[in-house]
């Protein structure tokens, strides 16, 4: 168990290194170079250009640039924003709680929707609700989440006027902010809900065919008890895995959902950075999100080994 955990922990190191290399290359992949991209055509002052070049360390050979960048990174220095002059890490830390809140809420929403529907769909197989659920989950998988967001805004904000469509409602208290959170969380959680609903249904159907479920039924237990006590827990194992795998993917999804709802998180930050050509911001945010994604996956993996006794024996 301990050995497995250690191996899994170590396996993250090359991945984190690879992510650093990719993020490092982001600035170096700019056609021409970052200086001409910042200065445009108008600023031809060679002194300014040399100064900028030195600032970005572009006057050194590439491997030295990389080492210097990696060294700064290890000290938690992600550079400073070229627009605001604020350290990038500082802004990330200001905005990260919003993104995390959105991702976690989406996770909760998707679990609340998918597991009950998946279970009902499986127990009332081929019924009307089952058909509806299956079609719903197929549509959920094919629907671009930003479009779902647009539709929700149209129905609940524009037409009905029930919920706000932009921002996070800072300073409006708990219930006030909750109103702002609802639509983005549903939007982000929908595709995960579709995936885990399918998983719950198929896994539940499989478990309901097992011998021990037949035994439970033969004992004369009510079907409700059979499902709740005997089948549900086992059928949830693969569902938990899928949710774990997808939890990290929610972080990528936040980028676009935040854009739809002008949510003040890392997603809007990175898009703003791209449109303003604020390269340190783009680099730092992408790096942070990717690191966090890897860490989430690692934690899910470790938790899963811990929770499922069969995996603990050490294969």
């Amino acid at each position, binding site marked *: 168990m301990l050995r497995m955990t250690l191996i899994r922990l170590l396996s993250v190191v090359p991945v984190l290194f690879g992510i650093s290399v990719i993020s490092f290359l982001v600035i170096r992949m700019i056609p021409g170079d970052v200086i001409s991209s910042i200065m445009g055509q108008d600023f031809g002052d060679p002194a300014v250009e040399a100064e900028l070049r030195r600032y970005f360390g572009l006057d050194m050979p590439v491997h030295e640039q990389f080492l210097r960048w990696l060294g700064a990174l290890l000290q938690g220095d992600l550079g400073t924003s070229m627009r605001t002059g604020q350290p990038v890490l500082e802004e990330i830390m200001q905005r990260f709680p919003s993104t995390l809140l959105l991702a976690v809420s989406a996770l909760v929403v998707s679990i609340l929707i998918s597991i009950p529907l998946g279970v009902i769909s499986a127990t009332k197989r081929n019924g009307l609700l089952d058909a509806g659920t299956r079609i719903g989950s197929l549509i959920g998988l094919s629907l*671009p989440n930003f479009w779902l967001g647009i539709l929700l805004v149209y129905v609940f904000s524009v037409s009905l006027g029930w919920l706000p469509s932009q921002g996070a409602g800072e300073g409006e208290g708990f219930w006030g902010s909750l109103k702002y959170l609802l639509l983005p969380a549903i939007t982000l959680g929908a595709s995960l809900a579709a995936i885990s609903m399918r998983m719950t249904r198929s896994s539940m159907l499989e478990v309901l065919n097992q011998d021990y479920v037949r035994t439970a039924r033969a004992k004369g237990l009510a079907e409700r008890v059979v499902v709740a006590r005997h089948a549900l827990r086992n059928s949830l194992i693969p569902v938990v895995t899928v949710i774990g795998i997808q939890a990290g993917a929610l972080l990528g999804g936040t980028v676009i959902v935040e854009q739809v709802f002008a949510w003040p998180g890392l997603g809007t930050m990175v898009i703003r950075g*791209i449109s303003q050509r604020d390269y340190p911001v783009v680099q730092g945010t992408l790096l942070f999100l*990717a690191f966090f994604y890897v860490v989430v996956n690692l934690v899910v993996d470790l938790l899963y080994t811990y929770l499922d006794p069969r995996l603990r024996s050490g294969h």
Partner: protein
Amino acid sequence: MVTEVAPDRPTRRRAQEPLARAGRRTAQVLRQIMRDRVGAIGLVIVVLMTGAAVLAPLIAPYDPTAMSNQRLASPSGTFLLGADEAGRDLLSRALYGARTSLTVSLIVVTCAGAIGVLLGLLAGFYRGFLDAIITPATDIMFSFPTLLLALAVVAARGPGTENLILALVIVFIPSFARIVRGTAMSIRREPYVESGQAVGLSNTRLILKYILPNSIAPIAVQFTTSLAYAILIEASLGYLGLGVQPPQPSWGSMLSNGKSFMEISVWPSVVPGICIMITVLGFNLLGDTLRDALDPRLRGRSSR
């Protein structure tokens, strides 16, 4: 030695008439897809959307970039699906959007597929040094959230069609490489490959004759589901303003324009979204059915 149980295993008969055999197999798969109601729906959607994309210049009632004074008009005899904020016909734009979306996705998935399959074959067949480089590299790319990886490339190279394609190709290579590596490794150990090796076939011939044909089923499934996913990501980047640039119509950017005028007309926010959804649904349904038809062993396994 000819067994009907596994008709996709290479046999002597296959070697003698490979084309006819492949044709029969394709027809058989198509029949199987059409027999499955869901698969048939998927195939019909895909064919219709491809047709719309190919024939867009012929069937679109207007030039997709031609503006008029009928800004945000509702559907009418003039504009069947209404008009956008510049008075452009939404139907024509949606048709040309299909052209953009499908062209980009097809180019991306074809290129990524070719590169990924090659990498997967090399890693899975030769193992050793090549595998030691290719596999960790694909693993690292997998560990990046898809959209973020594409964003990183577009952020560096700037928005535009070519950079969009480059970004998406990079994103889609790893899944092909991983799948093909797996099949290549397992087929390599089959007795018929070993006997081929024993009679002195070169590695290239072994790969072309045995490994590649037997990897076709998972590649085809991956190809179809990747197309669905590519359409979604293309639309997402388009929505963020980082994909195909205006005035060329793309579903994603149509949606982001439409959203600003939602209070006045909902049509620009609905039409492109429905197009994306139906097309992606079509490829997903087709991919699922293809998976079942080509290889029952893959049933129920999800692609990503």
